[in-house]
């Protein structure tokens, strides 16, 4: 059984601090949905509200169409996987996995059978007698998943469960999580500050900043069509050129920036005089002079060779250098440090968005 999750104008306040402001979205039945944002953006608060450990100050949480107000964490059809897993150290693996069934009064034989099934699902058969402390990091991870799945939740909530693992294992567990989700077919809500995790695993992603949901979209469209300056700067690398819109041409706009007038798509329909930021992704640049309104020229600060690609860092007018990716197939020789380099981009790949907060790295 699986269920959709609906947040209806959910606001959560702690005293005078507002952690989440008017979050409204619908997570579809059986979807792998991620909340992505920097730490302190309110994503864990949303998760705790869905799981029932927090009550929304305003608005409602509905699971499977049912309002969850007044229903405690122990009676919701959700199961939570904690950041530190929170396995019970004094119980065996089997007792951990079977705990939710035990408190529900499931008879011993049935419990043992289900625990066996789950241990097989997470590829840890015959390990039920071990203590949790005898397992490796990845195994503990899988036990935590099995423990949560044992109670047959309609929605599984995951609070950055991979953050404690090393890189290799993390990448492996991403695939594993995705596979488990496909097999059990229930709704997964995943919390992370790691965009790589969110992009590889999720069907859809909600990007959050300072308690506000900035955009909800599939990973590809988040990357190609970010809705706000924050999303544009947070998801993937991006070069911001702040300025004022001077002219609009069809669905393009011209922004007067510190690097001169630059052109890009104008999906938000900004008008001349509006404060705006033009974003150009590093890979959208190519070396050499292009059209006048899509070329910048500056001193090369540094060049890094990374095998299949190289990066050049140009001195920008802002605090950060302008990054451009030079592909392997490019027949240009790598520019030298201190040289002046002209780089141009395809204006349809650049984006003009309303002025807003950027993600601080």
């Amino acid at each position, binding site marked *: 059984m699986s269920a959709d999750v609906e947040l209806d104008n959910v606001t959560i306040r702690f005293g005078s601090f507002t952690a989440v402001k008017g979050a409204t979205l619908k997570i579809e039945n059986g979807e792998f949905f991620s909340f992505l944002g920097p730490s302190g953006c309110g994503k864990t608060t949303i998760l705790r509200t869905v799981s029932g*450990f927090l009550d929304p100050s305003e608005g409602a949480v509905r699971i499977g169409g049912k309002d969850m107000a007044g229903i405690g*964490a*122990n009676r919701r059809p*959700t199961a939570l996987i904690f950041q*530190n897993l929170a396995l*019970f150290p004094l119980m065996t693996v089997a007792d951990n996995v079977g*705990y*939710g069934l035990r408190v529900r009064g499931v008879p011993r034989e049935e419990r043992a059978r289900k625990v066996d099934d789950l241990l097989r699902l997470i590829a840890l058969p015959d390990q039920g007698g071990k203590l949790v402390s005898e397992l490796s990091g990845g195994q503990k991870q899988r036990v935590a998943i099995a423990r949560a799945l044992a109670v047959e939740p309609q929605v599984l909530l995951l609070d950055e469960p991979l953050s404690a693992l090393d890189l290799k294992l993390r990448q492996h567990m991403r695939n594993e999580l995705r596979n488990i989700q496909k097999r059990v077919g229930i709704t997964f809500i995943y919390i992370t500050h790691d965009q790589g995790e969110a992009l590889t695993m999720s069907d859809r992603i909600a990007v959050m900043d300072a308690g506000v949901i900035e955009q909800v979209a599939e990973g590809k469209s988040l990357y190609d069509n970010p809705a706000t300056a924050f999303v544009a700067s947070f998801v993937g690398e991006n070069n911001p050129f702040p300025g004022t819109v001077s002219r609009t041409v069809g669905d393009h706009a011209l922004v007067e920036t510190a690097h001169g007038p630059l052109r890009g798509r104008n999906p938000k329909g900004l008008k001349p005089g509006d404060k705006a930021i033009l974003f150009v992704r590093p890979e959208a640049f190519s070396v050499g002079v292009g059209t006048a309104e899509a070329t910048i020229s500056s001193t090369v600060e540094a060049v890094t060779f990374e095998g299949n690609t190289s990066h050049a860092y140009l001195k920008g007018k802002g605090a950060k250098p302008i990054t451009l990716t030079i592909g392997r197939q490019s027949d240009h020789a790598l520019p030298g440090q201190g040289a002046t380099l002209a780089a141009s981009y395809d204006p349809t790949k650049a984006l003009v968005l309303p002025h807003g907060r950027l993600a601080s790295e």
Partner: protein
Amino acid sequence: MSSRGLVYLIPIAVIAIFWAMAVWEKRRGLDDPSRKGFVQQNGILLSTFFVLAVAFWTLFLVVLPYMYMVQESFHPSLWPKDRGGPKDVLTLEHYKYFIYGLQTGTEASYNVTHLYAFWKTLLISLCVTFANFCLCYPLAYYLAQSAGPQKLRLLLIALIVPFWVNEILRAFAFRVLLSSNGLINTALINMGLIDTSFDFLRADIGLYLGLSYAYLLIMVFPLYNGIEALDKNQIEAARDLGASWWRIHKDVVMPFAKPGIASGCTMVFMLAAGSLAAPQFLGGPNTLWFTSIVYDFFFQAFNWSRGSAYAFILLLACIGFVLLVLRVFKVSLGEIAR
């Protein structure tokens, strides 16, 4: 050699045995050669101080007085001039007295008063320990898991400050509250809940309250330590999996805090069974506390031998009981000391 001489010989023998074991270990090369010796690690001055301080503590404050008491309990109570004389023989008369009392006739009789006091002391101590646990567990849980740092400090001060007041004074304060025309009875009568005053002291309620309160901190702090180390996420994980609040405590909190619980309970039990002030001042007229009997043998009857025997019986009973409880709850002595 009289048995009194043994008291002084045994500690020396024990020291000699340990010394010999250390030397033997060194000869056999059993100790890790890379490990620094105690003296090398702490310097000659500090290590001398440590050894002397620990030796003084164990020998003069623990071993010798207790050994003296134990051997005294196997001697008859004699005038000083008879000590060491022909009448000074080893005897079990004090232990027999505890069970049978004075054998006047040929008929077997039992020392009902003392045996009854003994069991009652242990039973009431057990009840006090249980009541104290029930009182302190929620408090300790709140302090350890729920209270914010400021509230925690305030509550700890509120718990500790009353214990600056002298124990006897505190016992009398309970008397003032509970006596026939004390505060509580007056209030109850004025409210029309009872007609005549209720004798809380005769019903031993004063004793229970006084003892529980006297050892409140002894129970709260081990529990607090035990619960405080528990990861809050574990409690939430259990709740998320559907456990009710009492199951969370039974399955997650209590097993985790078991060493703290055992440590608090054993200490309160031992101290309650050996307490003197609270039972003296708050015990009902029908409740004879075992330590009061011991006290009377020492300071009223001047029968130190019999007093020693009684004290020793109480000590053994308490230790045996505590070990039994630890065994039942599968806690090792080492865990308690954590």
